[in-house]
């Protein structure tokens, strides 16, 4: 069939999870200090004071165990000026990222400086901690640094609940936005699904038809962009009955997910089999696609609600998805000549 330039399918999605991190004793001690609006560093065997405290000495790899209290004022060692904060940045106005060496420490720490303007920033400038209004035991309990006040005095700190357990864990929400564009083969396939048609991609070398096509014939490593129109009929190659919910999927367990081989194709895909008792589903069973009403067709396999049994004789397992013999290179599934004999051949010698 003629190859039309497929539409480009793009869609935003968020890859996100709120990670639950355990901190261990060193990071935990620092974060516990932050919650109390105190800075705690540690001192390595060479006398260097690190803040935040390092779990292991970058020079000797030894654990650093001596903790020290650290001042809330320091000096900017280097900085960059963010004129237009992005949506992830915590300060919503122009600010600096900076390496700040706190007084009495030897190694600068990374944080932000709110100086108002780029002109107010300079290497070597004195800065002081600006604490967050509420502290939780996170690095962001330091809201940022700010130019040190004339007297070098930090503003009054609000009271902190005294009887809290030490911080041993933090939550890290990491949500990244992507705009995903489907590959050409997937786009062509899903465009047809949206029209209520099931199509596959045919490999020009081995003639295998893949549904859904994913851009290549994985066996031959060549593009399989010849679209082949397919029927709605398929055979159950294998299946599972799932008794636990799939995260983010509304379907209620128990339900059957089957490896379905559409007629005249050579690679099964997973879909739901319904319209019969779960216990009636079997390998070799014939099924056909039950499409949702046309107005619910989208660029997704969910346009097919499920596959349901049809009254046709079962297909022997060995015949499901079999390539025409002529199309099959005789050596395709054999070890190449320079390989050792297979393990099983060796196993045969076992009792000899």
């Amino acid at each position, binding site marked *: 069939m003629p190859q039309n330039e497929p539409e480009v399918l793009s869609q935003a999605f968020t890859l996100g999870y709120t*990670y639950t991190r355990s901190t261990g004793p060193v990071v935990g001690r620092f974060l516990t200090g932050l919650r109390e609006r105190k800075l705690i560093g540690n001192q390595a065997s060479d006398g260097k004071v690190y803040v935040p405290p390092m779990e292991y000495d*970058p020079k000797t790899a030894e654990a650093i165990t001596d903790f020290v209290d650290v001042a809330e004022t320091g000096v900017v060692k280097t900085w960059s000026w963010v004129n237009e904060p992005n949506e992830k940045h915590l300060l919503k106005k122009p600010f600096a990222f900076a390496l700040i060496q706190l007084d009495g420490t030897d190694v600068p720490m990374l944080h932000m400086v709110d100086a108002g303007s780029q002109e107010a920033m300079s290497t070597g400038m004195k800065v002081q901690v600006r604490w967050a209004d509420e502290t939780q035991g996170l690095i962001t309990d330091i809201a940022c640094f700010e130019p040190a006040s004339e007297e070098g005095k930090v503003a009054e700190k609000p009271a902190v609940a005294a009887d809290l357990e030490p911080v041993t864990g933090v939550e890290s929400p990491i949500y990244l936005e992507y705009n995903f564009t489907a590959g050409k083969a997937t786009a062509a396939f899903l465009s047809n699904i949206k029209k209520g048609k099931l199509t596959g991609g045919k490999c020009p070398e081995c003639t295998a038809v893949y549904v859904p096509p994913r851009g290549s014939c994985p066996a031959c490593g060549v593009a399989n962009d010849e679209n082949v129109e397919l029927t709605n009929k398929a055979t159950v190659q294998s299946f599972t009955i799932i008794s636990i919910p799939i995260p983010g999927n509304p379907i209620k367990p128990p339900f059957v*997910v089957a490896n379905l081989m559409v007629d005249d194709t050579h690679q*099964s895909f997973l879909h739901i089999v319904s319209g019969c008792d779960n216990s009636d589903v079997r390998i070799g069973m014939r099924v056909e696609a039950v499409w949702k009403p046309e107005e619910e067709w989208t660029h*997704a396999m969910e346009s097919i609600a499920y596959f349901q049994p049809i009254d046709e004789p079962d297909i022997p397992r060995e015949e499901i998805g079999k390539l025409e013999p002529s199309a099959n290179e005789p050596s395709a599934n054999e070890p190449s000549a320079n*390989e050792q004999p297979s*393990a099983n*051949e060796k196993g045969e010698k076992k009792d000899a």
Partner: protein
Amino acid sequence: MAELAAVVGVGQTKYQTKRSDVSIAGLVREAAVNALKDAELTWDDIDAVIVGKAPDMFEGIIMPEAYLTDALGCNGKPMLRVHTAGSVGGSTAIVAASYVQSGMFKRILTVAFEKQSESNAMWALSNPQPFSPHLNAGAGGYFAPIIREYMRRSNAPYNTGIRVATKDRLHGALNPLAHLKLGEITEEQVEHSGMLWDPIRMLESCPSSDGACAMVIANEELAEQSPKKPAWIRGTAMRSEPTMFAEREEVNPLAGRQCAADVYQQAGITNPRKEIDCAEIYVPFSWYEPMWLENLGFAEEGEGWKLTMDNVTSLIDGGDTPWNPSGGVLSSNPIGASGMIRFAEAAQQVRGECGDHQVPGAKTAMGHAYGGGAQFYAMWIVSADKG
């Protein structure tokens, strides 16, 4: 030709659902320090560090090895990060060995880890991308139909998987580091533990663990000076094939068969059942034991289950080829480390360091890992003798 190399130190963490007492660095460090202690070495004795773990999304840190350099004493040294899906722990050990076998390094440290509790493996593995046409039900949902097909072909008794699940938990109860300690488990319990992905029951599935495993690998000269017995690396092999392709043999994948043939040939093994004293094989779902017994040539095709049902793979029942005496993946599963644990436990067996789960007189052992859609394989053979 490859330089001889040997495992001279092994370190593991305790495996559990959540190691809430350590940071990621602390977890990895614990295994690394234990390996150095076992080898009676210090950080300065290490020439390079090779790190492995499964997808970065499990912990939500891109290339976390970069942040781990201080914890691993790696500053100023070479570091490499391997990622080959579930087989990664094994692949990492093989890459690490190649640092020494190439003759380019004398002694290296390798570490694999997963702090699974920072997220949820099910989420990380099933997170749907737009236009992703696959219905994804995690690893269990993927492997259950393949197991069903194995059951159909082999006519194995329905309780083969139950036998494996019970056996590996009883093994795990002998291993002080194992996550699941189910010394009282019965086959009846496994049978009634509830179907998750039919035919896979809950207790036929691996747990989700935090943990790390580390090894020190040294060249021949240094290994011979090592205070404890070295485990000589007699063969290493990796194979990959695509996840899906027409007529792919999913039950008994060719990549696994070829990988095994390759590693046996290197180690001079012609009859694995006879010549391999014990094996640590990646069995995250119980039915994979009989399937891999066949794939790895310990049994004829269709007959792996007979070895299982005859208790050949049981240490406790005195089987002649114990599989997963440590309890295996079914007892502890920090995904990125699971493969390396197999490799390290194989080394510990031939070093005679396994304590209560020691296979008596083990001289030659196999470590095995697989990943992706059972498409990535890593295997090694270690021996008490240089060969």
